[in-house]
């Protein structure tokens, strides 16, 4: 009996294998150059996360409009690809379908790209956030100098704080998130020496409940200005609103979540990088360069909430800070 079942399984498996092999290997479809420019993007979270993935999605929509709609550029996406090896499969698949540019929007995808890109020398790849192109000449890399907007937010928050305590909600203590948080702390401390900036990393990019409770903790500890980065902070913004504390956003504009309490947002404008990449591809360069979006090149924009009445002196200080970062008179010292 056991033998029988084993045989049966074997036969079934073989049958599956055979049917599979019968089907002709699908050849990579190489598109003619005449069609629209084709972009595929793989993102870890949802395109509507009001944070990291949305910033890229918005940029693509913007670029598409700039280029003249779907006739000039089309793009497809796979969002929610937090599983690294699923993302790798998606990247390879898009590349083999003849997309002109495949964007791997997540620092965890780099390793896969390093392996895939050499197999598709005619396809251009881009990934972020990092500066590492692995020395492969069809990979672009992009990164956000998120400490810059963090610094500006820190300056404003410290200027507005009456209690002398600020609170930060972070995901895990690394990468883009840590840069932003460290920038915020540096900005606040440079403006009001001795100000208390309490930092909390909740160990997750998705735990909205814990992020929100971390914000509550900051409020209970006396914070009257809060910030946080990554997609799980959406609940924390509500906590700021409920307790009449100020909120400082990053990655995408979060003003609509608390119209009376969001002061400013650092908004990523990946379209700045994307248009440079597209120009390079047009000129025949498929990679090898890394880009940083920052305040100077307009890849990061400080978006002030028009409905929030920022005192004129703070507004002036914020603008001077932005200018200082741009012209290099302010350098941001990041703590370890």
């Amino acid at each position: 009996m056991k033998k029988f079942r084993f045989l049966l399984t074997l036969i079934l498996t073989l049958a599956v294998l055979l049917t599979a092999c019968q089907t002709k290997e699908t050849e990579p479809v190489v598109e003619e150059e005449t069609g629209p420019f084709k972009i595929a993007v793989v993102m870890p979270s949802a395109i509507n996360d009001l944070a990291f993935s949305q910033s890229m999605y918005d940029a693509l929509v913007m670029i598409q409009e700039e280029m003249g709609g779907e006739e000039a550029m089309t793009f497809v996406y796979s969002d929610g690809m937090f599983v690294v090896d699923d993302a790798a499969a998606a990247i390879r698949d898009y590349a083999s379908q003849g997309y002109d540019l495949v964007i791997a929007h997540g620092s965890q995808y780099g390793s896969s790209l390093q392996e895939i890109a050499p197999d598709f020398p005619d396809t251009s790849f881009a990934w972020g956030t990092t500066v590492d192109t692995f020395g492969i000449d069809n990979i672009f890399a992009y990164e956000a100098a998120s400490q810059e907007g963090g610094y500006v937010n820190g300056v404003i928050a410290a200027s507005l704080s009456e209690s002398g305590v600020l609170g930060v909600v972070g995901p895990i203590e690394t990468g883009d998130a840590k840069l932003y948080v460290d920038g915020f702390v540096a900005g606040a401390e440079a403006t009001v020496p001795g100000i208390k900036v309490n930092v909390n990393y909740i160990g997750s990019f998705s735990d909205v409940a814990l992020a929100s409770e971390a914000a509550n903790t900051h409020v209970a500890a006396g914070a009257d200005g809060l910030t946080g980065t990554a997609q799980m902070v959406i609940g924390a913004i509500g906590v700021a609103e409920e307790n009449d504390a100020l909120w400082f956003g990053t990655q995408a504009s979060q003003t609509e979540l608390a119209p009376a309490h969001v002061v400013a947002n650092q908004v990523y404008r990946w379209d700045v990088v994307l248009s440079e990449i597209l120009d390079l591809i047009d000129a025949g360069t498929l990679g090898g360069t890394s880009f940083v979006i920052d305040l100077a090149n307009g890849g990061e924009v400080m978006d002030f909430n028009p409905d929030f009445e920022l005192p004129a002196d703070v507004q002036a200080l914020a603008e001077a800070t932005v200018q200082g970062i741009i012209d290099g008179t302010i350098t941001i010292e990041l703590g370890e």
Partner: protein
Amino acid sequence: MISDLFSMTVLVGILASGIRLATPYLYASIGETFSQRSGVLNLGVEGQMLLGAFAAFYVALTTENLWFGVLAAIVVGGLMGLAMAFVTINLHAEQGISGIGFYLFGLGLSDLLFQKMLGTVETVKGFPKVHIPVLSDIPVVGEIFFRQNVLVYIALALVPLAWFVLNKTTLGLKIRAVGENPEAADSLGVSVARIRYFTVVLGGIMSGVAGASLSIALLNVFQQNLTSGLGFIAVALVYFGAWRPWGVLAGALLFSLINSLQLWVQVLGIPIPSDIAVMMPYILTILVLVLTVSRVRPPSALTKSFERGD
């Protein structure tokens, strides 16, 4: 720094936020207690919570009535419970796996509906904090217990109610009988299927409300995977509480209090790596169970399907 932990602000902060964090667990775990007491392990709590959370959020947003939102969560959670009951009771499907299936279904469907019906993260004005007159003015205690939103109060009130139903009513007796010895219960004329339908649907409803407590009372937003594993912790807490409502309350509070403690530990700048701090509630929950070696056995018929008279 460490001494700051014992200041009044911090203690009050820990307790108040511990009670908030415990609320979704309380609903889901008490519901799960009922279904497990009758012999059904429901691992799909997380999926039921997510659909309940979305339904509550969407209805509250569109009708601007929070109680309609709660009602929607009850209906949706109940329907999910009904499906789970049908699959495990009528079709005798393996309970753990069905639960995982319903979890995935709820995780995907809630996200899909969110993307198609809302499209972006929005906020809703959730249940406000209710300051209970007089009581909320008591120093310390007032802030901890009497300045919470209404769903927090209901969750706490459900604990004695659940205890009463399980231990002091005929229904409770039947539930326990069905979970311990379905054959005997059946021979005494108790319909095993009917009792289990009741508890599993109740479990679904409670999980739905647990979701609502997040989306329209504590967080007031909806996002894909809003619960982020809370549902699985809720199931675990039923084991912590040894299938008793008071035990579940103890577990939910312990877990949540340590969680808020670790948030404070970071806020106060006590030099522990953040990841290690985040581990604390999980480690300590296990440790407490180890130290209080329990002799309680699970309901004998837990996970076991019942087929009548053949």
